[in-house]
């Protein structure tokens, strides 16, 4: 089964043409030349990919510095949220 980390890495490779070996869990987004706008875009992709929604109400801490931080947020939300029934799906 594909792990969360693998999927996040796939998204970053697809979206930002990053070499996959650079996307290590401890890598900071800054070291990957990803800025706050890239993070917002990445979360959007992550939402689709994992059928989750990152709430807009501030209930999830979005102080995200590393690739692992993204993975953690995803895992937490997947555990919290029943997978959404998205029209069309993937």
């Amino acid at each position, binding site marked *: 089964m594909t792990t969360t980390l693998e999927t996040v890495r796939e998204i970053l490779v697809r979206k930002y*043409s990053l070499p996959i070996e650079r996307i290590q869990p401890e890598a900071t987004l800054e070291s990957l030349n990803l800025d706050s*706008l890239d993070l*917002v*875009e990445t979360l*959007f992709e992550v939402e689709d990919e994992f059928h989750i*929604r990152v709430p807009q109400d501030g209930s999830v801490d979005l102080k995200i510095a590393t690739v692992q931080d993204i993975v953690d947020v995803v895992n937490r939300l997947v555990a919290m949220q029943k997978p959404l029934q998205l*029209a069309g799906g993937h």
Partner: protein
Amino acid sequence: MVTGLGVISPLGNDPDTLFSRLMAGESGIRLMTADGPRGQFSMIAAPVEFDPVQYFPPPQRTDNLDRVSQISIAAAAMALKDSAIPLTDDGKRRFGVSWGTGMGAAQSLEDSYKQLLLHDPDRLKPLTVLMVMNNAPPSHVAIQHGLSGPNLTYSCACSSSSVAIGEACRQIRHGYADAIIAGGAEAPLSFGLYKAWEAMRVLAVPDRANPSATCRPFSKNRSGLVLGEGAAMVVLEEREAALRRDARIYGELAGYGSSNDPAHLTKPSVEGQAQAMALALADAGLTAGDVDYVNAHGTGTALNDVTETRAIKRVFGDRAYKVPVSSTKSMHAHLLGGAGAMEFVIALLAMQQRAVPPTAHLEVADPECDLDYVARQGRRDQNIRCIMSNSFAFGGTNAVLIARQTEQ
């Protein structure tokens, strides 16, 4: 001084191709289809042939750039390269961007509403705001080239890019910048925007026998304007600096006139247009007798062409009947906010190449339009000392640019 030109146009994606096709009387107007809510729909328009991958090779991305940004960035890079201006650290601090558009990123805004209203009210591309804000294109240009001089966007409908060029000239004259890349763009060929123009009943009825001849400025049988898309940018440099570095100079932007028609949102006025032309002449220290070519606003609507003809007569007097006046919109159509810059580029090329492009498809002129419109056939071997480019807009903004050959 104008030292660089760049265009993405319905008649080719470089200035020389554009000008040679205009001289040949070629039209970029055609019947085309686009995506509408009930499948494909037909429109008459002048689209650009633009392959984003050519201008933004991977890993560069275009998914966060509206088409209006893409063509502006491409035209700006072309103009900068053409100017061969050295971009030093000091120079970049004194280098600005001045850009105009009527409707900006209309396509992306429309796409965003489509997504929200038809698909999912909670799923919108995260950078939608940054895609659709009207100053996105010039900001991308500034980022790409590291320019930190004034970065200004003007939106006054069909005069937008003329205003952007004229105001940039003032910025340089008044010492706020040494160089500015100026111009504008429009990418209006989306379903919603096309329908909005159609609803106003100002679009020309397609010529079924020959769609490319649909736009017929000054003709007795003209039926309206045709929408086109494109971007045009020019590099303006402070006079002495351009001469010092021995730059190739297309002409000296000598005069800019700006006025307004305060009586009505869409009805043009002879007074306002004449005022802008007279102000531009005065600004240049020239008289109507010095002007050897007028690139008319010439939209092909009933009102514009007669009003502009009268305004030219008022300013030029007897010379109105001697100076060639052509509307190249007959071929590249109406680029709205991008029109003024595109036509200024065309007029500069006319001066440089000593050739006047025609008003295409003009068989029988409206009796009230009785000037020399250079009907159907362009003219070569013309001594053009000085050109005038007219832009008049919904909302009332009139903007006139005058350029002359360089006295070195």
